[in-house]
């Protein structure tokens, strides 16, 4: 099977996902992702003419809740696991605006 994905594409996807990869990892994941795509490609051997695309594996729709207010967390609870806080805020490195 030919490689579906080359290391350059992996680098681009990694950048979009904000993940740092080493050169070795780029090679490794290019191989693994290609294997996955080749595996999935078996599906295209099936004739899907006239079959509607599946958007969800469950055959149900319209599961709503009523527009009613429920219990929220307290500020202390909300911030409890944050690596860094400032007053009532989550704190993150300065964002350039």
């Amino acid at each position: 099977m030919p490689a579906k994905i080359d290391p350059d594409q992996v680098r681009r996807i990694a950048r979009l996902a904000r993940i740092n990869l080493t050169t070795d990892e780029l090679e490794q994941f290019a191989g693994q992702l290609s294997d996955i795509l080749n595996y999935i490609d078996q599906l295209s051997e099936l004739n899907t003419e006239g079959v509607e695309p599946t958007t969800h594996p469950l055959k149900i729709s319209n599961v709503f809740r009523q527009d009613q207010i429920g219990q929220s967390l307290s500020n202390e609870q909300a911030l409890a696991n944050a690596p860094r806080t400032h007053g009532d805020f989550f704190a993150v490195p300065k964002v350039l605006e």
Partner: protein
Amino acid sequence: MIQKNVTSLGYRPTIGLEIHVELSTASKMFCACPNHFGDPPNTNVCPVCLGMPGVLPTMNRQAYEYAVLMALALNCRIAEFTKWDRKGYYYPDLPKNYQISQYDLPLGSDGYIDLLVNGQTKRIGITRAHLEEDAGKNVHDLPDCTGVDLNRAGVPLLEIVSEPDLNCVEEVMAYARSMRQLVRYLGISQANMQQGHMRFEPNISLWIFDDSEPDGGHYTPIIEVKNLNSFRSLERTVAFEIARQAEEWQADPHGYRMDKMSKQNRGWDDVREVTVYQRHKEEADEYRYFPEPDLLPVEIDDAWLERIKAQLPELPIARYARFREEFGLDEKLTTLLTSERTTADYFEAVIQAGASPRRAANLIQSQGMRLANEKGTDVAELGISPQRLAQLCKLTDDDTVSASAAATIFQAMLESDAPPEKIASERNLMQVSDTSALESIVAQVLADNAKAVADYKSGGKKAKKARSFLLGQVMQKSKGQANPKVVGELIDREVLGQT
């Protein structure tokens, strides 16, 4: 910046507008946290809108129906089947690192809205309307970090995308204002600008007329300006961009064109009042959409759609046309009366209660709107029932009180529940139409102003002025309570011998 004669300029602005509107549901889009502005940071949050692992979003039915209602008002085709998608991007105000949105199956598409611009109707195409969730807020004025408040994260947000049918600043503003009016008519958003309920993203380019080209011209590169949250910044941004692009085109007529440059994002600098370069669009747009596995699709059948349709009120433009026709009011007055649904409803209730349309319209405009403005409310909320205002209109129409007394009474009605007639008599504002009571004042004024009487009698150039002078004197002596019509008749009778 409003260009009437576009061909003489050599270009025509071509503008599309994306509008984000926060819907005024009680709770958020996918969790039960309050959708409420102004609370202490990070108190309207839960594991779902904080983006904790292992949680499940659940759809707010009201938000969906509000969005469909707007799509119907915009004459959109309503999708029988929609699903949700994840739009991936990284910003601290988006804790999941994706936004739940509708990508390829928006709930509404191919609609339009008719605008009134300078008395002319212009139809603007609506490409799509879809529902998504709002992000939180980043706070930038902290000393050594950016603060994140996620109270707004997950608030239902309706995105409406227009076709690039807007051709000048005026049309952009009419479109934006009509959208605000419409969501307020529908009652699906307060559209409070100060609270960020509405944000604008114009896409601006110029069509350059050039007969030597096969298409008769070309476009300048599209500029998108993100996140404008006031009408003022929208207006200035669009005006600035039109001028800036025209300048760039004039400086480089052959290079500054869409097919040679990619789309750009620029940001509006409110202090310097300029747009500034941000980034090329293509790098930014890799959102890696994919279907949201945590949410089920939505299917609208006819019965449900009919139930939503039944909630559509008479829309502003139809109401405007009807008011003009039915009540014979001028453009300006009709625009004012139909600007808010509550005001239009109130006006009609006053008519129902027996007032003449013209009098009701004038009193609502001259007194009601002024007082409502001062109090930061709207006319219907002033506390004057339609019945009481109708009574005041009738008193004014039958000359029981003068127009200026009506203004005073209107104001007094804010502080008193008494019928206007009672207020009028308590405050001595009843107009004197009784001829015998006025005759002595008229006689005295005529005796004291022999010159004016002579001028009036002479019928010359000064006659008209002399008559108004005499009338004014009588009004003054009666402390404004005389009926000017009756006084005028008395003066004419005494001076000219007419009856």
